[in-house]
C-alpha cells in the first residue's frame, strides 16, 4: 500500500524555473526521504529529513517537513533538463520504507 501521495501528479516547467512538489502521508514517521527515478539511472536517493527537522538543503534541493500536517515539500531551484524524472517521497517507520505515488517532472529547454 502507498503511504504518501504526491501533488501534483505531473508538472511541466521550463529550464531555469523552480519546481515544487508536495507529499502528504498518513502515519507517524522516523524520517522522510525523496528519491528520483529516470530511465537512465533508475531510482536514486536524493535527501533525507528526520522527523525532528523542519528544513534541509542539498545543492539545488530544499526539503521541508511539517509533522503536524503530515506533509513535506521538495523544491528544486534553477531546474535543468536533466532534472526530468519522477520524484517520490518515502516515509520511514521502523526501518520500513513506504513510497508515495510520485510526481512526474518535465523540464523543457
Amino acid at each position: 500500500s502507498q503511504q504518501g501521495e504526491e501533488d501534483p501528479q505531473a508538472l511541466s516547467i521550463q529550464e531555469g524555473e523552480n519546481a515544487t512538489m508536495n507529499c502528504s502521508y498518513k502515519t507517524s514517521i522516523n524520517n522522510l526521504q525523496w528519491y528520483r527515478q529516470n530511465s537512465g539511472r533508475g531510482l536514486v536517493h536524493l535527501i533525507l529529513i528526520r522527523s525532528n527537522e523542519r528544513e534541509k538543503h542539498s545543492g539545488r534541493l530544499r526539503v521541508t517537513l511539517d509533522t503536524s500536517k503530515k506533509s513535506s515539500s521538495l523544491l528544486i531551484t534553477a531546474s535543468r533538463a536533466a532534472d526530468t524524472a519522477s520524484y517520490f517521497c518515502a516515509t520511514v517507520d521502523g526501518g520500513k520504507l513506504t513510497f508515495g505515488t510520485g510526481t512526474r517532472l518535465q523540464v523543457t529547454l
Partner: protein
Amino acid sequence: EAGVVQSPRYKIIEKKQPVAFWCNPISGHNTLYWYRQNLGQGPELLIRYENEEAVDDSQLPKDRFSAERLKGVDSTLKIQPAELGDSAVYLCASSLALGYYEQFFGPGTRLTVL
C-alpha cells in the same frame, strides 16, 4: 564501487510459467529489499532481509512468491506460477544495516506476463 546488480533486465513469459529474479547487493550491505513497482506507481515492499533472515515478508504473496538469501549476500525472488497481474518492474535494493535508512536500488527487472 559497484552498485546493486540485477538480472535479467527484461523477462517475457506466458502465464502459469515460473520466473526467477536475481540480485547482488552492494558489498558489505547487510540489508536487502525486494520491491514491486507497477506502472505509474511507487515501489511497494515485498520482503526485507537482514543478513539471511527475512525480517518483514508481510507483503509477499506467499502462495506464489518465494524468496531466499543464502549466505546473506545474493538473493533470488521467484514467482510460480506467474499471473497476468504480476507484470511489473521488480526492484532490489540494499542498505548498510536495518537502521541505516538510505537505500541503493538496482536497475530492476521488467517482467511481462502474457
